[in-house]
């Protein structure tokens, strides 16, 4: 397994995303990478304009690489150890989007807060 082979796989996924709207992902932790392959892959993909950090069960870094549509996700536990790492070819990684049920819950939550604020005469909610 080498960086070049992975890049070919990513290219195929990008083609698929472009033509059929269906990308995919590559799990990095299961691969027998030679020392240097990981850094070579990072260098080949580069860093893009968008980076996000999720704080849930430890930090997760979500970065778009210099190649639009190719995202690098690093999941760490609360001790900072990497528990999973993957490259996702997509317009937006699933974990970045707000889950639909969370939206329903916040809508309800905010309504309730405004109702209480109204009742107690607190203008700021």
């Amino acid at each position: 397994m080498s960086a070049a082979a992975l890049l070919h796989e990513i290219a195929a996924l990008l083609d698929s995303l472009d033509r059929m709207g269906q990308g995919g992902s590559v799990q990095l932790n299961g691969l027998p990478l030679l020392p240097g392959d990981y850094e070579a892959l990072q260098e080949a993909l580069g860093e893009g304009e968008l980076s996000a950090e999720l704080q849930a069960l430890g930090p997760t870094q979500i970065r778009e690489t210099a190649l639009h549509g190719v995202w690098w996700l690093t999941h760490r536990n609360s001790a900072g150890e990497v528990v999973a790492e993957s490259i996702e070819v997509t317009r937006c990684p699933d974990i970045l989007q707000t889950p639909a049920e969370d939206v329903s819950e916040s809508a309800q939550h905010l309504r309730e807060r405004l109702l209480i604020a109204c009742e107690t005469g607190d203008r700021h909610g």
Partner: protein
Amino acid sequence: MADENSLGAILRAQGVSRRGFLKFCGAMAALMALPPSMVPAIAAALGKAQRPSVIWLSFQECTGCTESLSRSHTPTLEALIFDAISLDYHHTLQAASGEAAEAARATAMKQFFGKYLLVVDGSIPLKDGGVYSTIAGMSNLDMLQEAAKGAAAIVAVGTCAAFGGIPHANPNPTGAVAVSDIIKNKPIINVSGCPPIPVVITGVLAHYLTFGTLPELDDLGRPKAFYGESIHDRCYRRPFYDQGKFAKTFDDEGARNGWCLFELGCKGPTTFNACATTKWNQGTSFPIESGHGCLGCSEPNFWDAGSFYQALSVPITPLGKAAAIAAAAGIAGGAAIAMHNRHVKAGAKSGHQTVTVNDLEKQPGEAR
């Protein structure tokens, strides 16, 4: 919303957000060697799964398997799986002791009869009525047979429980045997290794938690997801093996260049485990990467398979003849050599012959 006893509810109650749950499911998919496309299905299944009762029995063991699992000073995602299950009995880890502990075990076995998961580490001694390992005055043999009756499945953790391990090694003074030598009427998953890689243990539990079934097993009862390939097949030093670049002694130039450790006794070709890909200590390294050959610790009788520092022995038939037969059948020379390597350990036990790696390299004129 799913009922209070479901895994989803338990995680939410612990303050895990939906994104956190998705991250957890992604890590679980990685643990079970499943593709990321399966994460939504895993999330749906885990969200509804019931918290299973788990009874852990430690028999004639060194506690290395429990240590492998719990040796984590800070919480990890794998540790969450242990929070998610209801570990009703584990005499090393639990707070209760003595009669209270045994009562807890009896209660759990009765309440969840037919449904609890039984996890066993350590071998079971049979000699002299099983007197060489007892808990609360009860022999391991009796305890296993009693607990197995109401178990949905049994996970034999570690080479001792899976194959007899070190107590079973020559001359086996206690008559130690594996779980599968005693229990014949329950599904058994062998998670071998001395110790097994922690994520392999939790991966098997994760699979059971998610799907309620046993993962696909090989002919030694080990989950194929983790034991389906040999160390040799996934070793990052394989290019050196293929080029014939071997370290001759520890710390010679070849060793310092990271060359293949075959001549220093590496048992990678005949050992099936996830060490080369999953690695140890959260993916830090594994024996070969640290400069020492594989001991073959996830295979039966690895303690009796000849020296850890002697190269895998020559097979019973000379390579040339067997390779010629293989070539005649249309198989490439490389596969013939691989086939030989798989029979090597059986040959070693009966043959006790020494070999150099040249015996296993291709002969002139042989097809590759």
